């Protein structure tokens, strides 16, 4: 979230798209309700009428996989009808920047496409530079090569008729959404977007998010109270684990994982430290060397010295993609031999689970760390599997639940909140920290005894959280994440003082300031609001970066530091003596001295975004399995998506599988279900696997509410109870009626409530940028079960 949960109450309009917040983030509706009490309008965009839609002023149905077309259509309306915020566009975004005249777009492809590699060469996706090397601008936004005009041209193809025929959403509803949402282009109004996995889990997932962000920028809704682009994270600590680099492409604090071409620290820093010649650009990532060296000092302590590149060579250099699908494909192919699976249940939650369960069968060993014996831990007892034929050795380590251990949880709003042990874990169950500490210590012993070819990274690890078999001191971990001044041994006060000479350490620069000599900031519980009274509560817990509750907040003011919305101001300039008031500003420089989007070297938010793999503007492409031909271009699928074509990776056609399917969660169950399908009270509420379908589809298939039906895709087949409901309706796509069904993905073969796993149906294909699986749009067929 750029903003945070409580801030939703400040919105004048709320669009929930790619999210069913009422069901999956119930607490968010505390704040949605407050906004609505103050007159805010709620828009729900979803293929299915959900418990979120039930509360909405406007419900706009779109078929799964058509978000870009929908939002591009809304943006087109906003641009054509001058609803955008021009001052904001010029002052805070790259709308006025001139783009290379060679840049172009034709029939679904941007310039620079290499079809043999399925990737783009981005040399034309660049700004025109002036003699000092800074981007050229046209503040009137009239130059045909300025970002705004290029965007306008790109969007103009997304006419109401076109968008309606792609999404299945009636044109008048698109207009209603555009007008209602577009009204927040007024300077003192704001709107927020709440999104989740319905947005991201597509082959165009990253571009989906970008589309929302661009809509927000057009209307001046980023950096302001009640605005922003707000990812509702799927688990309580997903934000925290992402910050701490649970993903393969980043190191803690969103530093880049070294690539194989970054052979030295100097080469790494050269490649990943952005430069700017513009004195008004804060270019915050220019500090990358300080954060990188401080991280290496946290990892390897005294073994990281200037002479050995601060142990940079201990870091692995990636040469391939190590995301979820890639790893399971590698397990299936016998490349990866062992797996530690902590708090994850891919045998239910992974895409194409029949393939992923098969991949587990090929492992030499599997360590499953969880509260219960999950489907993953017990993959060898899946229906139809003969354990005698499986050689995998499985270790089951019982884990402590969140209430049984102390530590921090970082919520979607970036608030790190300290928690205490409420009860001790039962039996042999141990905290994840204890388990990892023991594995770390044993690995060190093994490498010390038998050094092997490259023992340094393990043997020299800075690993001091407590002796022997004791519960490690979680405060020592939190302090290491914050970092130390190594010359004094004191905790760092904030990342501003981190150095690249080896005299400071920080396990995650973004969390530097979270645990200082003044104490554990995440444990603070002072419920006093900030003077602007917009619900920042700055002394309740702590949030990154440096306790800034709304990021990009300099963009909530004009260039003189006056808030656009005085009645809900975030920060304001109070003069050279007293400086900024309100939230922690995005840098303390006087207004106008520095640009507001400090994380970008050009200092402006990018309507033209050249960082992504699949294009600087969002373009509609169909999902891997789509019910129609792409109406926008000859490019059916996102042209840079990786296609997996191994065994068990079959793709279905609309002729054989004419019904669109999507997956989702329900309030009553959580993720792959081990925590909720083992709770009898929750099982009572949602006891069985079901499929939701329209009355028309049910009628065509002779299905009645409560009948058993079979759902088939090219990957698998499952059985479920039919919920026949008016909450699903067929979509009219280019004149043709197309049905969609929906499936909860919580069920499996273990626990109190069992049922077929929806992910038996989903494909192994991921987003072009992140490789997040396309769980949300695929093709199936539905038949009534006989006998």
């Amino acid at each position, binding site marked *: 979230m750029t903003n945070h949960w409580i801030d939703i109450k400040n919105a004048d309009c709320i669009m929930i798209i790619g999210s069913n917040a009422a069901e999956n983030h119930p607490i968010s509706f505390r704040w949605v309700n407050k906004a609505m009490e103050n007159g805010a309008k709620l828009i729900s965009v979803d293929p299915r009428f959900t418990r979120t839609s039930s509360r909405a002023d406007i*419900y706009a149905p779109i078929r799964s996989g058509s978000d870009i077309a929908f939002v591009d259509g809304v943006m087109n309306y906003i641009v054509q009808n001058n609803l955008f915020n021009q001052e904001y566009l010029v002052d805070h975004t790259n709308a006025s920047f001139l783009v290379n005249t060679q840049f172009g777009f034709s029939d679904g492809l941007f310039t620079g496409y290499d079809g043999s590699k399925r990737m783009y060469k981005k040399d034309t996706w660049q700004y025109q530079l002036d003699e000092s090397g800074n981007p050229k601008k046209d503040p009137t936004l009239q130059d045909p090569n300025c970002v705004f005009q290029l965007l306008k041209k790109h969007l103009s193809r997304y006419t109401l008729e076109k968008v309606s025929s792609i999404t299945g959403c009636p044109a008048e509803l698109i207009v209603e959404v555009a007008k209602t949402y577009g009204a927040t282009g007024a300077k003192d109004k704001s709107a927020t977007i709440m999104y989740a996995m319905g947005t991201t889990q597509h082959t165009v997932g990253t571009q989906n998010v970008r589309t929302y962000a661009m809509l927000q920028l057009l209307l001046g809704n980023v950096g302001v109270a009640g605005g922003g682009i707000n990812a509702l994270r799927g688990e309580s600590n997903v934000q925290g684990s992402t910050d701490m680099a649970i993903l393969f492409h980043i190191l803690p604090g969103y530093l880049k994982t070294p690539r194989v071409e970054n052979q030295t620290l100097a080469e790494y820093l050269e490649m990943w430290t952005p430069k700017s010649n513009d004195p008004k650009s804060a270019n915050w990532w220019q500090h990358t060397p300080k954060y990188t060296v401080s991280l290496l000092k946290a990892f390897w302590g005294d073994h990281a010295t200037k002479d050995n590149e601060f142990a940079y060579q201990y870091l692995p250099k990636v040469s391939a993609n190590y995301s979820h699908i890639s790893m399971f494909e590698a397990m299936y192919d016998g490349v990866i031999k062992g797996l530690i699976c902590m708090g994850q249940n891919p045998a239910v939650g992974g895409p194409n689970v029949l393939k992923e369960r098969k991949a587990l069968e090929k492992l030499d060993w599997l360590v499953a760390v969880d509260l219960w014996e999950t489907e993953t831990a017990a993959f060898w007892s899946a229906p139809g599997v003969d354990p005698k034929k499986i050689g995998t050795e499985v270790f089951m380590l019982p884990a402590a639940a969140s209430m049984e251990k102390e530590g921090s949880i970082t919520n979607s709003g970036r608030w790190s909140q300290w928690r205490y042990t409420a009860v001790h874990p039962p039996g042999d169950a141990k905290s994840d920290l204890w388990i990892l500490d023991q594995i770390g210590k044993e690995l060190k012993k093994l490498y010390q005894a038998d050094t092997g070819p490259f023992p340094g990274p393990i043997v020299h690890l800075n690993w001091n959280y407590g002796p022997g078999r004791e519960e490690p001191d979680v405060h020592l971990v939190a302090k290491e994440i914050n970092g130390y001044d190594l010359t004094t041994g004191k905790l760092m006060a904030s990342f501003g003082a981190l150095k690249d000479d080896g005299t400071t350490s920080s396990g995650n620069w973004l969390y530097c300031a979270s645990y200082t000599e003044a104490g554990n900031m995440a444990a603070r519980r002072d419920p006093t609001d900030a003077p602007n009274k917009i619900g920042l509560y700055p002394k309740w817990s702590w949030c990154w970066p440096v306790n800034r509750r709304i990021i990009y907040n300099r963009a909530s003011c004009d260039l003189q530091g006056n808030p656009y919305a005085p009645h809900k101001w975030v920060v304001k300039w109070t003069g050279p003596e007293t400086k900024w008031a309100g939230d922690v500003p995005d840098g303390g420089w006087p207004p106008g001295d520095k640009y507001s989007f400090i994380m970008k070297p050009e200092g402006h938010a990018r309507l033209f975004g050249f960082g992504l793999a699949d294009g600087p503007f969002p373009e509609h492409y169909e999902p891997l399995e789509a019910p129609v031909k792409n109406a926008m271009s000859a490019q059916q699928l996102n042209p840079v998506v990786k296609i997996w074509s191994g065994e068990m990776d079959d793709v279905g056609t609309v002729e054989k599988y004419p019904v669109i399917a999507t997956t989702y969660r329900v309030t009553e169950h959580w993720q792959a279900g081990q925590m909720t399908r083992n709770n009898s009270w929750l099982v009572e*509420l949602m006891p069985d696997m079901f499929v939701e379908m329209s009355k028309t589809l049910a009628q065509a298939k002779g299905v009645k509410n409560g009948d058993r039906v079979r759902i088939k895709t090219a990957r698998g087949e499952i059985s479920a109870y039919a919920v026949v409901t008016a*909450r699903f309706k067929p979509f009219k796509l280019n004149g043709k009626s197309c049905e969609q069904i929906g499936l909860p993905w919580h069920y499996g073969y273990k626990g109190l409530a069992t049922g077929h796993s929806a992910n038996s149906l989903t494909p192994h294909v991921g987003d072009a940028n992140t490789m997040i699986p396309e769980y949300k749009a695929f093709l199936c067929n539905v038949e009534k079960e006989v006998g």
Partner: protein
Amino acid sequence: MAEKAILLDMEKCIACRACQVACKQWNELPAEKTTFFAAAGGYQNPIGLSPKTYTLVKFYEHEEQEKLKWLFRVHRCMQCVDPACVKACPVTPVKAMTFDKNTGATHVNRELCIGCGACREYCPFTIPVIDTEAGKSTKCTFCFDRLGDGIEPACAKACPTDCLVFGERDQILQMAHQAKENLEKKGRHPVIYGETELGTGTKKIYVLPEPLDYYPDVVKSPKVSEDLGFFHQMLKPFGTLTLTASLVGMVLAKMKEVKEKDKVKPS
């Protein structure tokens, strides 16, 4: 203690069913064995109130002119200001259906209850359910065992959206009228239910965002049966004996028989 009440502003309900589960947790009620969604109307489970379920979220799906409404309602004991169930309870000298003066809660004293069913028979909303195995009446207790310690009811505590709010009845009524007014401004036709029903009203104050027709199971004009006095008279001769459920059952059956006869008589 000023009279307490719970606001149920169903416009704010997202049917998360936290109240339903919190009720079970506080009252240590076991889960029911359910299958699919046996009750009509979407996700509702279990099928109805029972000795194991004192609070139940109901779902209502309405479609009119392509416009869909998916409504929710928390269903359980209304906690009448002047509870007929207490009057009906034949157990003497101390009533098993207890009106707790301290908290204002009406709840079943399980030690005294004989499970006769008179409370259900005379409840204007037909709420209490007899646990035939244990021979006890069961229903929402208004969390008298929390209120007594100054803690709000479990359902209101668990509600994430301020749909359920516990407070003084006067203030709750004000909030209800404010919520109604807000909805009316949006052109909706909300109903306050529980303020004046039965004359003296109830302690569960509903704001239903749509007219009562949208909630077919809600009793439109609840009334306390007029034969409550007659019932007690019929029981009087047994006053010296220990009342049993079967004896009261016989009396109730007899009264029903009489009533049925009255019905078939041509008027």
